């Protein structure tokens, strides 16, 4: 079959506006309830007369900007009203049978988070730049993990083994960088480790049709077992030789890194973060604008049709799963040579599963996943920053629950239509 037949008639079903069936009111309702909550709790119930201060620049910055102080109550009310306006807009869109554009929940999330923030820091101040810079750092492995997950699921393979791939990447990058004496070698080794795990996943699920979730869970156990074993047996006794990889230092981009807020946050990070930007951009274009992307999505949505058009379904899946493994393996390098500079037992700490949540919150779209990952990173970092400032209004554990609860709300469909690729999880068996 020629290429033309493959790329012809597969308009993304996402955007199709149909008047069949019922309108889904979950988005406006959820946004409305949350907006009302923000207006009342963060606005009207905020302590009157207190000020929330955001420190923008640090002492070392080129341009100094005065810290911004706002009245906590006024800001809370304003942001709460903004949330309600967005909820109303989504209501109008739904009533007119039109989809709610992605920027609405994104802006809503931003406004909600800032309302929460002004409420939290009422009476004290918070370093905004540090907060955001840390959020990006914490989001890096989540972004790579989510890219891995969505590449697999877009082609029809559920990848529960992201956790194992991140951990394998972290382990091998740490060990190779230690032995070779340069973190750059670790950066080469990390994707290979992820690909090895992904290769196992692909062999069992795509070739042998074993259930994808089972294999994913078992591979996680396997990688945790192997890395823990080698860590205790080899890395701990010979620390200098095996587990001293060093780490990348931040590379400020000349010029751009001097911009207040944005500069230090976006353009003064290490190489892995810059690769992350590139990965998200490339994957977005490749998935939605290239022949490969069209085939990938076809295989994930309707493998029979793709097969009819001459696409070899299982070899596309196999290649994509292994490629995805390279991505999350690379992300795993962030744990060792990207941040802490040494490998630790189970140091991914379940973040591979959070990456799955990130992927779903981002609606299986690289850009969406990027923002969802930033949300998770932000909450994680907020918790530690507030903990340091002693300003946490309530228990850090409860605050850390928020992203998980948001994910549950999202998958339950309360926050808009979240639809997985149609054929994910189903082995394609040619008959």
């Amino acid at each position: 079959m020629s290429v033309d037949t493959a790329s012809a008639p597969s308009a993304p079903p996402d955007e199709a506006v149909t008047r069949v069936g019922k309108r889904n009111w979950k988005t406006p309702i959820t946004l409305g309830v949350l907006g009302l909550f923000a207006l009342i709790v963060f606005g009207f119930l905020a302590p009157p007369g207190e000020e929330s201060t955001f420190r923008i620049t640090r002492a070392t910055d080129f341009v100094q900007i005065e810290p911004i102080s706002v009245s906590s109550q006024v800001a809370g009310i304003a942001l709460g009203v903004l949330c309600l306006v967005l909820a109303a807009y989504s209501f109008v869109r739904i009533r007119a049978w039109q989809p709610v554009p992605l920027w609405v929940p994104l802006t809503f999330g931003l406004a909600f988070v800032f309302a929460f923030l002004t409420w939290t820091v009422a009476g004290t101040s918070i370093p905004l730049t540090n907060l955001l810079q840390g959020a990006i750092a914490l989001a890096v492995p989540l972004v790579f993990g989510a890219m891995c997950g969505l590449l697999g699921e877009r082609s029809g393979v559920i990848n529960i083994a992201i956790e194992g791939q991140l951990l394998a990447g972290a382990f091998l990058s740490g060990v190779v960088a230690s032995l070779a004496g340069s973190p750059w070698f670790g950066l080469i080794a990390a994707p290979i480790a992820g690909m090895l795990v992904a290769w196992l996943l692909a062999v069992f699920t795509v070739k042998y049709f074993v259930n994808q979730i089972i294999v994913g869970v078992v591979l996680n156990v396997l990688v945790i077992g192997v890395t823990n074993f080698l860590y205790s047996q080899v890395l701990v006794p010979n620390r200098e030789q095996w587990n001293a990889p060093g780490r990348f230092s931040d590379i400020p981009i000349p010029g751009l890194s001097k911009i207040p807020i944005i500069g230090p946050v976006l353009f003064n990070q290490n190489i892995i973060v810059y690769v992350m930007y590139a990965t998200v951009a490339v994957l977005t274009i490749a998935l939605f604008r290239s022949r490969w992307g069209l085939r990938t999505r076809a295989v994930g949505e309707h493998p029979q049709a793709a097969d009819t058009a001459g696409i070899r379904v299982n070899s596309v899946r196999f290649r994509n799963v292994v490629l995805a493994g390279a991505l999350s393996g690379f992300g795993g390098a962030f744990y060792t040579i990207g941040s802490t500079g040494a490998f630790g037992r189970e140091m991914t700490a379940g973040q591979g599963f959070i990456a799955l949540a990130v992927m779903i919150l981002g609606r299986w779209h690289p850009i969406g996943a990027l923002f969802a990952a930033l949300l998770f990173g932000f909450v994680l970092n907020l918790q530690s920053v507030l903990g340091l400032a002693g300003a946490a209004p309530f228990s850090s554990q409860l605050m850390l629950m928020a992203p998980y609860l948001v994910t549950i709300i999202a998958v339950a469909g309360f926050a808009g239509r979240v639809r997985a690729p149609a054929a994910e999880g189903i082995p394609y068996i040619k008959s």
Partner: protein
Amino acid sequence: MSDERSGTGTTPEPATDQLGREGIGRRFIRELQGGDWLVTVLAVVLALAIAGVLIIVSDPRVQEPAGYFFSRPGDTLSAAWNSVSDAYAALFSGSIIDFSEYSVGRALRPFANTLERATPLIAAGLAFAVAFRAGLFNIGVEGQIMLGATFAAFVGFTFDLPVVLHVTVAVIAGLIGGALWAGIPGVLKATTGAHEVIVTIMLNNVARLLLLYLLTKEAFQRAGRQDPISPFVGENATLGQLFSGSRLHVGLLVALVATFVVAWLLNRSTFGFQIRAVGLNPSAATTAGMSVGRTYVFAFLLAGALAGLAGASEALGTFHFLEPGISGGLGFDAITVALLGRSQPWGVVAAAVLFGALRAGGGRMQAATGTPVDIVLVVQALIVLFIVAPALVRAIFRLKEPKTGPVAVATAGSEA
């Protein structure tokens, strides 16, 4: 009748096509069911062999003679043999029988420890298996165990009730705790179609944080302690010891009773029939007039109660208090246990005893030979990997295909 769902999709695969040929998926599934005990044994042997290689290459006692391998290869080989045989001998004597002890009671103490480790695995394994039979992936066993343990321990250390009654109430509280937590994904799946894998994974994290949060509260804090640890449960609320010198407790008997009940429910009751029917083919079950959603909810409630039992068993029988690591990954071991037991109630018991032995013996192995206990995880994962792909084991050992499945999945897979 176990691993029917090789594909988890919502669209059921047709069993046969128009020409009456059997689909490869079906064939594979039948092979899973027909997977005989030989495959299981070989999977265990293969897993131990691969783990053995890992032990050898990482052992410094082997690495040293390996440096002059080509001048005296015998040194390396004997060192390798010693490395593995010492480790596995310690694994055995730490889990089954310790021949170095003189009295029978003391010699069998390792086996009692094995059963003690198997106890929560039985209940937790059933928690995964029951949901799996309904076609659900209960990845949330870990969180359900935590909630069960929290409820059970709370009743245990807060109230003061008479003998028997106290422990009964505490265990029931554990069942309720687990069931409530598992009810969330059940209800969400039934009403909104939210995928249970994602919801349960998220709820595991929420449960972990909830437990940490509760342990900072006064009602859960042990007097005079700053770290997150609860008071000891009352004497009357503990599950009694069964075997002196070991931590084996009455929880084992409760878990076995639970196995009886689950086996009866699944194989003999209407409820169990519905679970199996929905698990095999939700569309057909709907056509037959069953409520798929309600079955999902009940399956999750039952699964959660079983996980809660595992939590109660740990809190009241093994730990006697509550701490953040009360579950310690049991919920994930439970998945491998249930898969190895092919989701059959008594198969789960057998698998739990095997993995309990690996756990109990692993501790002894680490103490005696310095081989990290983590190798047990590797063995566990490899066993299950081989079990779910029996074609792989058959190919490695050049076994004949079972008569029921004439075409090997390995060859069928490559043509697709």
